């Protein structure tokens, strides 16, 4: 061996590179926090939990729901839309109200969006029982160029973004960390909203996703003629500026959510709070209506809208269903009558049960789901943590068995441990580097990734066999030059083979085929690391072992 360090590096740079990668991988895998101790993506809660579990876990590898337990639900948003509508700006809300009235929709079920940067309008409806023709007909009253053919299935990116945000909030409210919400495009250009939550059962997650969560407060009161009428007085997330946590009043024994009504004044000096207060005073809630609500049987959880006495009730409505009906309290009523309430516009939204209170808080906090999800076109995948643990063991076992088989075959074929041992070690170092990489970028590993790792070992050994056969071809490797020339020949073949594997796998890496993306990504990364780092290094090692007499 030459004592010249430059010469040493020149001759063995491939091995040195491999050693460097392995070192990096080991750090990324085993040093708590890894190379990038960046938890900015995770919330505070999650961070605490992550820190706790790092102490229990041996490695920094993160697992997906397939290996850790949890549920994934994919479903597209319900709705259709017409893009590029030509509108005058004052027609914006007119079109919106035409959609509600002419198509007989709830206000949450239609919206018109203005995209300021391109000055175009988009109309959307979020129900599936309106025909495209009817929808187009309403818009055609404003923009005659719109016909049925302009109606597209699906909703706008804005709507999907709002949905993703709402679902994220709900998942976080449910107190589970590590949830993920994202959209996936299909070949046809439609979109699915995918929600992944570790530690949730499919029933729980579907319930969380299927609630629209549109909260309204209705005033139920006798009008001038003495007939009971409904009026929406507070609506959705816009009217509430702060939502507290679900609470219980020990003295009087009821569940409630403390809320603050928005008191930001508009140009006319009105706010949601002053308008609510004015409505309460006008409808008589703060005078003869105080404590005058008896339509709810709390024991039975039933409502009786068939009554003789006039009733003044505040109805809490979620998705069009009455959740609770309660009366105006004494103190709140007099505060409102005097007009003081609007200065500190808080009240308690009472609910029958604790669960209702919690759900109400979540719905108020996260807002309504802009469009409902279409569960007729859903896909669910769910694994219990216990089975996921089994899968972890199985994966490890299957991986070890595969590696042992490959090693066995290689030893049988070459009969020379000097050739075979480094081959097996190199192939395994590829997996190690990949695992380190996965830990580094916090890629959650699933069964499909495990399949990818095994595939990488497979292609890896194939290439190493090519290198070994080529380098040992025609007897001894007498000089560096002979080695380099043989190595280049081998490299052409493994390079070409790697290119085909990458091409074959790339559609999977970009398409949304569920589990398979992980498989494709790991295979492609493995082939790249293999061809660029580990397999050349094997050539180097082999050369050293064969020329070292």
């Amino acid at each position, binding site marked *: 061996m030459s004592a010249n360090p430059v010469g040493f590096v020149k001759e063995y740079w491939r091995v040195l590179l491999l050693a460097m990668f392995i070192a990096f991988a080991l750090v990324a895998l085993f040093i708590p926090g890894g190379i990038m101790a960046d938890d900015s993506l995770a919330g505070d809660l999650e961070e605490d939990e992550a820190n706790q579990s790092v102490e229990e876990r041996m490695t920094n590898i993160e697992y997906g729901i397939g290996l850790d337990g949890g549920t994934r639900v994919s479903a597209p948003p319900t709705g259709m839309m017409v893009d590029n509508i030509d509108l005058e700006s004052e027609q914006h809300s007119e079109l919106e109200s035409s959609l509600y009235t002419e198509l007989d929709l709830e206000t949450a079920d239609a919206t018109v969006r203005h995209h300021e940067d391109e000055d175009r309008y988009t109309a959307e409806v979020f129900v599936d029982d309106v025909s495209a023709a009817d929808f187009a007909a309403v818009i055609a009253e404003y923009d005659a160029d719109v016909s049925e053919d302009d109606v597209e299935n699906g909703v706008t990116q804005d709507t999907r973004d709002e949905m993703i945000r709402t679902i994220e909030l709900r998942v976080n409210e449910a107190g589970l960390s590590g949830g993920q919400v994202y959209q996936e495009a299909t070949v046809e250009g439609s979109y699915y909203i995918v929600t992944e939550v570790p530690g949730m059962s499919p029933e729980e997650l579907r319930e969380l996703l299927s609630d629209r969560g549109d909260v309204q407060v209705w005033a139920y009161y006798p009008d001038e003629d003495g007939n009971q009428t409904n009026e929406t007085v507070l609506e959705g997330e816009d009217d509430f500026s702060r939502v507290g946590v679900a609470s219980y009043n020990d003295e009087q024994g009821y569940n409630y959510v403390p809320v603050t009504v928005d008191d930001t004044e508009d140009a006319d000096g009105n706010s949601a709070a002053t308008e609510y207060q004015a409505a309460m005073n006008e409808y008589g809630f703060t005078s003869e209506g105080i404590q005058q609500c008896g339509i709810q049987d709390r024991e039975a959880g039933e409502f009786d809208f068939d009554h003789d006495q006039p009733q003044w009730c505040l109805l809490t409505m979620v998705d069009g269903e009455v959740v609770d009906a309660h009366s105006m309290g004494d103190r709140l009523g007099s505060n409102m009558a005097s007009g003081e309430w609007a200065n500190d516009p808080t009240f308690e939204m009472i609910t029958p049960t604790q669960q209702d209170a919690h759900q109400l808080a979540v719905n108020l906090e996260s807002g309504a789901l802009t469009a409902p999800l279409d569960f007729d076109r859903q896909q669910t*995948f769910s694994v219990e943590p216990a089975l996921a643990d089994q899968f972890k063991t199985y994966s490890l*076992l299957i991986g070890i068995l595969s590696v042992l088989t490959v090693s066995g075959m290689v030893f049988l074929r070459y009969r020379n441990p000097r050739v075979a041992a480094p081959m097996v070690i190199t192939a395994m170092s590829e997996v190690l580097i990949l695992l380190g990489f996965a830990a580094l970028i916090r890629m959650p590993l699933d069964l499909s990734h495990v399949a990818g790792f095994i*595939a990488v070992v497979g292609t890896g050994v194939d290439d190493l066999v090519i290198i070994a056969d080529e380098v040992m071809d025609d007897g001894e490797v007498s000089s560096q030059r002979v080695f380099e020339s043989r190595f280049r020949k081998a490299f052409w073949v493994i390079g070409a083979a790697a290119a085909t594997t990458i091409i074959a796998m790339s559609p999977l890496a970009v398409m949304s085929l569920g589990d398979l993306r992980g498989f494709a990504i790991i295979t492609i990364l493995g082939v790249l690391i293999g061809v660029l780092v580990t397999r050349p290094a094997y050539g180097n090692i082999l050369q050293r072992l064969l020329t070292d007499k």
Partner: protein
Amino acid sequence: MGYFDVPDISYTRYTNRQLAAVPLAVLAVALLILSGSFLVTGTPVPLGMDFAGGAELTVQTTSSQAEIEEAFSVEPDSVQGIQAPGVENQYTVQFAGIEDQDAIQELSSQAEAELAQDGDNEIVQQESTASPSFAAQTQQTALLGLGVAFAGMSVLAFLLFRTFVPSIAIVASAFSDLMIPLAFMSVADIPLSLGTVAALLMLIGYSVDSDILLNTHILRRGGDFYESTYRATKTGVTMTVTSMAAMLVMGIAATLFGVELLASIGIILFVGLAADLMNTYLLNLSLLRWYKFHGVRS
């Protein structure tokens, strides 16, 4: 000793026609099976729940296999016990091709209602459902993916060798490498799942390796045709047989453990690689020999 050596096949004894006849006949049979199955069932291979809609449940229960089969409103396509170390009373229950979305959704609650609980364990350990329209979408995506991958591989083969016969030899044997395992699935009644699609794609990558090796040795290196062939075969067969062994072990182990994804990848790759051995060293080789001795005009 059980050493594994690559035999030296005496190709000189056979004509190109004789060599190509075997793989072509097998391919013909495969295509016949696939088209026959297409005519009878409407699909060349049985579609699993990923592509036809349906459900797959893994249940843990003390109920017997027969009781599990009776527990659902829809009769399951298969109920398979999981044989893994330290695991008892676990079964994989598969339903494919259910049209009614609500019926799919209800399967897991039926399992919870009808099956006997095993200690404290949850009855439904794993649930995977896809509605028919989601599955149709997946099917389209998978077909497109396979198509793009195959086309990309073909283009690359032509770019690498820039001559018609050697390139088409690669494409033809890769095609056959895909058709034979598909026909095998049809005969063995292995449903097409995401795992098997992954295996088919992997097969495109794997199978081309040995073809490229053979072509390179014969076309780009000097020396006797049979000498080059022997060297390429020695390396190529080692590669393929090693991979086959690994895949067989993975396929068997994963089948026993009930890890469906890994099981189907292992089994399909094993069959495909076996087909690849035949296609590379009979079909591709005969085309190359014809090209080398008759096809090149200089």
